[in-house]
C-alpha cells in the first residue's frame, strides 16, 4: 500500500492549488494591468481586467510631476546604509562565534533579548533620541534604528561557528591581521549566509515604512513607501496613478524574488521574517 494519493485526487489538489494561487496573486495582476490603463478605464464601470489602450503616462507622471525620482534615490541610499549594517552584524556574529571573551555570554543574551522589542514600542523614544542628536529628517536617521537586528547576528554566529579554527590559526601564523582574516577568509567562507542576508537586507530596506514615516520630516527625505502613502491621500481619484506608484515599489521586489527565490525562502524558513 502506498501513501501516494491517486491520480484523480492529485488533479483535484492541483486545481485547488492553482485557483488559490490565482486568487492570492489577483491584487498583483490588478495592480500591473491598472497601472497602464488610462484614467477613464481604471474608473470605468464595468471594470475590465486588461487595458484596452495601454499607456505609460502615469509612470512618467510619477517621475516628472511628482517627486518619485527623489524618493527612489532616498530609498536606494537607505538600502545602501542597510548593507553597512549587514557588515557590522557579520562582524559581531564572527566575534560571538570564534572568540572567547569576558562578558560574551551576557552580551549575547542582551542581543537575543532585543528581539522582544519591536519598532512599534520604540518609535516614540527613538524619535526623541534621534531628535536630540539632530538626526531626524536625515536618511541616516531613517536607516539607523533598523541597521542591526538581533536575529541576523544570531544567524551569522550560527553559520560562522562552522568555520574551522585551524584555517584562522594558519592565517594568524602567516601574520595576517584580524580584520584581514575577517574580510579575506571569514566572509568568503560565509557566502551562503551572506547571500540570504543580502537579499533580506535589500527587501527590508526597500520596503521599510514605519521609520521613514516617523523620521522623514519633509518631502525631500521621503522614501518610496512614504511617498506612496502620501499619494493615497492626495489623489484618491486617480487609481491608475496609484497603481503605477505601487508597481514602482512592487515590481523590483518581484524581480528580486524570482531571481533569488531560493535564498529568500531559506531566509524566511530561518527567521520567520516579515
Amino acid at each position, binding site marked *: 500500500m502506498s501513501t501516494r494519493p491517486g491520480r484523480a485526487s492529485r488533479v483535484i489538489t492541483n486545481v485547488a492549488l492553482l485557483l488559490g494561487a490565482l486568487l492570492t*496573486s489577483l491584487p498583483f495582476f490588478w495592480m500591473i494591468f491598472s497601472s497602464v490603463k488610462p484614467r477613464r478605464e481604471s474608473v*470605468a464601470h464595468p471594470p475590465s481586467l486588461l487595458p484596452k489602450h495601454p499607456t505609460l503616462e502615469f509612470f512618467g507622471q510619477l517621475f516628472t510631476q511628482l517627486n518619485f525620482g527623489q524618493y527612489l534615490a532616498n530609498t536606494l541610499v537607505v538600502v545602501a546604509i542597510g548593507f553597512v*549594517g549587514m557588515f557590522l552584524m557579520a562582524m559581531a556574529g564572527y566575534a560571538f562565534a570564534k572568540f572567547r571573551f569576558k562578558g560574551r555570554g551576557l552580551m549575547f543574551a542582551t542581543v537575543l533579548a532585543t528581539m522582544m*522589542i519591536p519598532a512599534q514600542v520604540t518609535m516614540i523614544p527613538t524619535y526623541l533620541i534621534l531628535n536630540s542628536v539632530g538626526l531626524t529628517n536625515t536618511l541616516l536617521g531613517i536607516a539607523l534604528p533598523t541597521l542591526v537586528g538581533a536575529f541576523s547576528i544570531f544567524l551569522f554566529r550560527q553559520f560562522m561557528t562552522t568555520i574551522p579554527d585551524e584555517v584562522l590559526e594558519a592565517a594568524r601564523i602567516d601574520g595576517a591581521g584580524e580584520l584581514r582574516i*575577517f574580510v579575506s577568509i571569514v566572509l568568503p567562507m560565509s557566502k551562503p549566509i551572506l547571500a540570504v542576508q543580502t537579499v533580506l537586507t535589500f527587501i527590508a530596506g526597500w520596503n521599510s515604512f514605519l521609520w521613514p514615516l516617523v523620521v522623514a520630516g519633509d518631502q525631500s527625505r521621503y522614501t518610496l513607501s512614504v511617498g506612496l502613502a502620501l499619494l493615497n491621500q492626495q489623489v484618491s481619484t486617480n487609481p491608475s496613478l496609484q497603481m503605477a506608484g505601487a508597481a514602482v515599489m512592487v515590481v523590483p521586489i518581484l524581480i528580486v524574488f524570482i531571481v533569488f527565490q531560493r535564498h529568500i525562502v531559506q531566509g524566511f524558513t530561518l527567521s520567520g521574517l516579515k
Partner: protein
Amino acid sequence: MTSTSTVAPPGAAFPRVRRPRRSGPANRRHGSVVPYAFVAPAFLLLLAFGVLPILVAAVVSTTNMNISGLADSSNIRFIGAANYTRLVHDPEFWHALSNTGLFAVVGVPSILAASLAVALLLHRSDSRFARALRAFYFMPAITAIVAVALVWGYLYNSQFGLFNYLLSVVGISPVPWLSSPTVAKFSVALVAIWRATGLNIIIFLAALQGIPKEYLEAAAIDGANERQRTLRITIPLLRFAIFFVTITTVINWLQFFDEPYVLTQGGPVGATTSISLYIFQQGFRYNQFGFASAGSLVLFVIIAVVTLVQLRLRRRDVD
C-alpha cells in the same frame, strides 16, 4: 504587519550548518581587545536603538513631554503616573486594545488554517507544477505593505472597486468595505491575513519536510486512510510549528500598523485603530510624547508577557 518575529522558528539550524569543530584554540585570544572591536559597532547600535529607547520611554512617560518640550527642555515637567492614569481612563485606548484583541482572535486562526491547509496541499502534490505555484503564495509576504494596501484600497473602492463589481455580477448588493466600522475591521484584517499566509506556508512546508516518511507509510500499512494519517500523524507532528506560528502571529497582530494606517487611517470612528496606530497617533499627530511613551511601555509589557509565556510553554513542551 511589519517587523521581524521575535522567536526562533522550529529547527532554526541553518541547513548547511555542520557540527562546530571544538578544537579549542578559539580562546587563545583571551584578554585581547579584538573581539570587542568586532562586536562593539553592532552591539552599541543595538543598545542605542533596542535597549535605550525602553529606558527613555520609561523616563519620558512620567513627564508632560510634548512639542514645546521638544523645542525647549525647560518646558518638561515631572508628572508621576498621571500619563498612566489618563491612559486607563481613555476610552480610545481601550477601543484600540479591544480592536487589537479582535484582530488577533479573528486573524490568528484564519492565518493558521489557511497557511496549514495550503502547505498540506502543496506538500501532498509535490509535483513540479505545485512547486512552481509556491512562488505565487509567497509573493505577498515580501512586497511592501504600503503598496499592496494601496492596491487593496482600490479593489475595495466603493465606486469603481473590483470587489463590489464582482458581487454585483452575482446579484449581491455593494458592501461598504472600508466605510462601515464593522466591515472595515475585517477588510483591513483580510489584507494582513493575505500577507501573513505566504510566510507561514514556508514555515509549515519546512516542518512537513522534516516528518519521516516511514511514519506515514507504517500507518498506511496498518490501514489508515489519508484523512486519518493527516489528522492523527501529520498534524500532531506539526505541533511545534503550529505553536511557533501561533505565537509569532499573535505578536505580529500586536504590532499591526501599516494596513490600517494606509487603508483607513484607523477609521471609521476608530474602528480599525490598532494599539500601535493609537501610540503613533498620540505621539506624532498630537505630539504628546510623554503620554504616547506610557502607551509604548504598556505595549512592551504585553509583548514581553506573551513572549515569556511562550518560552515557558515551550520549555515544558520539551520536558
